[in-house]
């Protein structure tokens, strides 16, 4: 049973990463910027797991699990920040949120 080469998986990972980068740069809603960040992290995860399969080495999968944990904590802090911004009745627009002063 032979499926596609690892190169195909890496192409999908590169496309995912570029899609996420486009979303981060293009969108103004911080929620969608966070979702696009998730897509970028998942593209990197797919590349890690593809290389782990290529070399027959489990360490890549360990790294992917660590990336998932970091992504979960990033979402927790990011969503907390977004809720805090929304409670201050500020516009949810990353172009207008240019001051750190609360």
């Amino acid at each position, binding site marked *: 049973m032979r499926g*596609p080469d690892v190169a195909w998986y890496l192409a*999908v990972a590169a496309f995912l*990463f570029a899609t996420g*980068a*486009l979303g981060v*740069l293009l969108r103004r809603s911080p929620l969608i910027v966070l979702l696009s960040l998730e897509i970028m992290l998942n593209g990197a995860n797919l590349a890690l797991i593809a290389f782990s*399969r290529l070399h027959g080495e489990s360490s890549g999968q360990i790294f992917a699990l660590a990336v998932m944990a970091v992504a979960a904590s990033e979402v927790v802090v990011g969503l907390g920040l977004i809720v805090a911004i929304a409670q201050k009745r500020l516009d949810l627009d990353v172009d207008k949120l240019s001051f750190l002063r609360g």
Partner: protein
Amino acid sequence: MANVLVWTVWVIAAFSCLASGIAVVSFSNPFFSALALIGNLASLAVLYLLLSAEFVAAGQVLVYAGAVMVMFLFVTAYLGGRADAPWAGGPSWQQFGAVLAAGAILVEVIVVIGLKAGGRLSHEARIDSGFGSPHRIGRVFLTDHLLAFEITSIVLLVAAVGSVILGAHSRRSETTGELVHNEEARART
């Protein structure tokens, strides 16, 4: 026959993965974007299974599609899905630059991978049936990568504490903000 089956599953998973990724970026309503991301994560889990990473695939579905996305959907519903059209007002130089930068990243990644590893990507290592199983992952996690395991737990704890502090702080500052607002209104009248 098995070859054709694997290729079919791969093509379906890869295309639904890319399509839902583009959908996340292009939907104007954040709620629909979050729903599209769930599809993206599920098709990625299928790709992980094809790469014989069973434990990571299960973790992907449980942690991401289960826990993280539920939190996302709750926050989106709490804030109210405000529409934000990605191409509103015609293309500006900013959007042009964003598309250019994303395309540059894509070309860069593909060229670098092709140059550095182009010839070696088709020789996959032989693996036994235990590769990627919870047993193997757990053994590697608790022997070779114990430090990474412990640091991951600290990162998760710090994130949880930080978000609790953020929530408490924003609630307190909200009440003081209302006080200031009331005083301003009184001063105006």
